[in-house]
């Protein structure tokens, strides 16, 4: 598996760029919208649609590829109260449950996304199956991440899920 590490890191960098560009372009679209509507008095509809798309993709792809384990919002007070052995057990059990549930739902999710190809958005005429396609990598990433944690726990490798680190800069910002 080790030979895959550089590939993973490349993929991750690519998605980091993509997600940053999505947020940046979403920001730009909003500015365009404000300028057109209030300064030029010429309302445009596509900007609203574009930002909604960018937001949806940004969240799903961002969670799948960019959010680090320590950034994930979790209730770790209870979890951290246990010793390392117990935590490993907890990760194995809950990780398998999460992976199982999302894996079970995946075929139906795929069916739903492809079914949505019959509808298009109002302004940009974007097909909804393309728009909603970001959900599939999200589901796969949830499964892979959960199993990755299980594997780590099984092999007794150090944890990487926020139990040891605290990274306030990337907390949920509420």
């Amino acid at each position, binding site marked *: 598996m080790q030979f895959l590490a550089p590939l993973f890191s490349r993929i991750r960098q690519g998605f*980091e760029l993509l*997600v*940053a*560009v*999505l*947020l940046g372009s*979403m*920001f730009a679209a*909003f500015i365009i*919208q*404000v300028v057109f509507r*209030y300064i030029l008095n010429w309302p445009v509809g596509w900007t*609203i649609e574009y*930002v*909604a*798309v960018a*937001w*949806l993709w*940004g*969240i799903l792809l*961002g*969670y799948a590829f*960019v*959010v*680090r384990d320590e*950034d*994930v*919002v*979790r*209730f*770790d*007070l209870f*979890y951290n109260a246990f010793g390392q052995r117990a935590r490993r057990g*907890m*990760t194995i059990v*809950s*990780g398998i*449950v*999460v992976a199982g*549930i*999302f894996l*079970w*739902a995946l075929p*139906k*999710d795929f*069916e*739903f*996304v492809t079914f949505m190809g019959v509808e298009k958005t109002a302004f940009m005429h974007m097909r909804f199956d393309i728009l909603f396609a970001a*959900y599939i990598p999200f*589901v796969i990433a949830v499964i892979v991440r959960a199993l990755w944690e299980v594997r780590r726990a099984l092999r007794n490798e150090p944890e990487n*899920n926020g*139990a040891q680190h*605290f990274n*306030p*800069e*990337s*907390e*949920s*910002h*509420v």
Partner: protein
Amino acid sequence: MAPNISIRKAKAMFDAFSVSLALIVFLTLFGQSIGVAMIAGTIVYLGIKGQDTSIAAETVLQGLYSGYTLLAVPLFILAADIMNVGSIADRLMKFSHALVGRFKGGLGHVNIVASIIFSGMSGSAVADAVGIGRVEIQMMTKGGHIPKSYAGALTAASATIGPIIPPSIPMVLYALVSDASVGYLFAAGILPGLLMASMLFAVNTWVSHRRNFPIDNSVPLSELPKVTVEAFPALMLPVILLGGIYGGVMTPTEAAAVAAFYALLVSVMLYRSVNLKQFFHTLLSSARSTASVGILIAGAIAFNYVITRENIPNVIAEYLAQFDFSPLGFLLIVNVLFLILGCFIEAGAILLIFVPILIPTVNALGIDLVHFGVVVVVNAMLGLITPPYGLLIFIVANITKEPLKAIVSDLMPFIGGLLIALAILTVWPDFVLFVPRLFGYQG
């Protein structure tokens, strides 16, 4: 016949809702992401009900796609991040220092004033603490006369004002689950935020006298015009934001974009403190925060389908109706409940999961939704500084490198002051609703 009965019994025992709820609690306690756990719970609920499990996906996708107000969240995160990277925070600090540094407990007052001004630009307590909070702590402890733990405690306490004075990410989340207007919610936060600040001023003065903190070498009044001019472009940001929203020019979401744009403009053009590389990193870290809060929102949207299907809010409303609470009694109970929850659960999760369950009861009792919103958001913010799980405590502990215990003990008087503010807000809706009514709110 016998197996049938046992199946029915089993079904009654393991009805879909209880199973999904138990699953969410189990996954959350066992260290999984809260958002992912709620989506998983929804999938299992649908499965047991014999419905199409892809309804979970559909609910999440449609909910995120059509949640226009939610778009303010990433933009406010971005605006705060840009201000924190640029030198805006430093300039505000100098300005506040010249303004109130001369009084007893001066550096503490400077901290509070800077937080008030910053909160008029940022909608996130976390952003306030990691951004201007870091500068505030440095400024307060530079002379060596004020303990680091006290500087940290005051910084954490003053950061809670950030999302009360508009703009506010938690209020956007509340608006999502309650259907109250974001604009009126923002307006309703102004007086409560100032009330909380005055409580902090009072506590800081009292503590400074009691512990005999020295008066700082203040900036002479003659320098006030100079630092004001330097900070002026940054000081205009709250004016643009609020003017834009209440002049009816912009929606709060658009105002968020304009705020981020203005912060970028000021930082790049005037203060020359942000370069392209920094901007990219700011975008990336904002995107990261957005995605992690976004999945929490997605989970709440998914599970909200289950809650609505099971008619839970109305069941709770009917259950609570038999106790015949007065509106005030109900609000007090909510305060106690949320303060306790806030000690253990993240603020965003409280607003997205527990608040929607209570909304029908709030309506049935005739409590104003905007007033209720301010009360629960203040509660959620207090949750950020109450141990054992207080995000802001962790953040200032991380900045000061002081033990949590020292910070928590210095925080206690401030928590007391903020609780008094909360009590006043709870019993006095007219105070909270004064500003929204000026802008035509009918509540």
